[in-house]
């Protein structure tokens, strides 16, 4: 089993945290995982993306040309990356910001209005956790409780934000379980 994921958006959308949480949660399960971040230019806006590979055997390349799954959080990322999902793979789209619709049926697409939900939850900055929830909902091999632990650990020093992040994450799961497409 090897699964590759790319998460892309603009700086400030927290795309890194989505990827890091997925990689870290996998690593706790004795899977191999790699997380590779790519910033447009350091510290400032622009686009950012990260690659996550999870595998039960050795991981060679931490970045791939074609990916099993891609999460895009803004227009630019959609344009740049949507075409790189493997046949049969999945594309997660932040439909609050991205208006485009994917044409073609070789992959599965999920349109997740993460910003809207985040605002509902009370903090527009946790849209990333909504997306994470949506992603996790689709993966039975990712343990929800373990992921919640990860989210908490990665908020070390910002404990006051734990609740809203967890809430957003749960909303993402619910949304998916409810079924969106």
């Amino acid at each position, binding site marked *: 089993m090897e699964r590759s994921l790319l998460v892309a958006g603009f700086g400030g959308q927290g795309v890194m945290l989505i990827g890091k949480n997925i990689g870290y949660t996998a690593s706790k399960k004795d899977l191999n995982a790699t*997380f590779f971040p790519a910033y447009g230019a350091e510290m400032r806006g622009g686009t950012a993306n990260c690659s996550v590979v999870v595998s039960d055997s*050795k991981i*060679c*390349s931490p970045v791939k*040309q074609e990916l099993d799954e891609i999460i895009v959080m803004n227009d630019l990322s959609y344009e740049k990356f949507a075409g790189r999902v493997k046949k049969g793979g999945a594309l997660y789209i932040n439909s609050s910001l991205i208006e485009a619709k994917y044409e073609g049926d070789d992959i599965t697409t999920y349109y997740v209005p993460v910003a809207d939900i985040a605002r509902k939850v009370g903090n527009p900055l946790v849209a990333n956790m909504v997306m994470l929830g949506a992603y996790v909902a689709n993966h039975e091999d990712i343990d929800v409780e373990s992921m919640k632990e990860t989210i908490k650990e990665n908020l070390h020093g910002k404990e006051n934000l734990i609740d809203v992040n967890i809430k957003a994450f749960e909303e993402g799961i619910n949304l998916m379980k409810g079924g969106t497409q």
Partner: protein
Amino acid sequence: MNDKLFVKGSEAIAEAAVRAGCRFFAGYPITPQNELPEYMSWRLPEVGGTYVQGESEMASMNMIFGAASTGTRCMTSSSGPGLSLKAESLSCALGSKLPHVMAIMMRGGPGHGIIFPAQQDYEFAVHGPCHGGVKQFILAPSTAQEAVDLTYSSFDIADKYRTGVLILGDGFLANTIENVTFPPMKKLEDLPQHKDWKITEYDPNHHKLITSYFPPEIMEQENIKMGQMYEYWEEHETQYQNYLMDDCEILICAYGSTGRICEEVVDELRNEGLKVGLFRPITLHPFPKKVFEEIDYNRVKLIVSVEMAIPGQLVEDIKNYVARRTRVEHFGRSGGVLINPGEIKEAIHKMVEE
């Protein structure tokens, strides 16, 4: 601290160094390796060591110079521009036979400041990095785990040969977070004590002088001894990964991150019916040249050096060692463009068709 962690390459190297007995670090910020000094800044004080943020790469290198002369295991880190800036004092440190470890995480270049991975400092590091013809011992890990293991042993190498060890990585290695298991913390008492040369030991009958300045005749002797040491290294200290080399017809040569990426390429090309193997040098100096004497050039029809460098750099050395006994090609990306397995496969297919 846990022995198994999901951790960034840079931080993995830092922790491994601390466990190897490193108790002094000096460095200066530069992407893509900032997490290494940042880690050291809190971790070293925790174990009674010292972190100093140098005012420059050069100052950092010279702090290492001083620390090393006290016999303390010490380290600095940077990227290619920092290696350039350390060059002069590195020459003095190597000439003064001061054991130290340096981690350099390469990024696109030349010049001012691309922050993405590249391998464009190979030739500089291996054939260059300073005046006077002295050389470092160079290790090129391909994964965080290997970086840990090599860093752990690098301090022993530095002490054993009174030399500098360069851990040459890149932005991939530095920034990839992955699973790592750490070796145990070494006891300082068990490390070499260097009483014969370290300047903290005073002996009225034996004036201790750390310098790389000698009158010509003595300097020449030093040069000769250094040359012999490099030859000894080549005989006894080379390391490389042999991945399906033994029956291969196409041999990929790649080091560091590109090496690990190429393992995947080998697997996939084998699946596609090409008999491909991988030679991944782990020591870049001493270089495992002997491998090229053992290759059956009737079988191996093509050697491809894959690097994040254009023009190719490793490929020039490979050509040298192959000495025209078979075809040698280069495929690479550079300037911070990420290399990926797909395009490498494609490139090799194309070479085969030619």
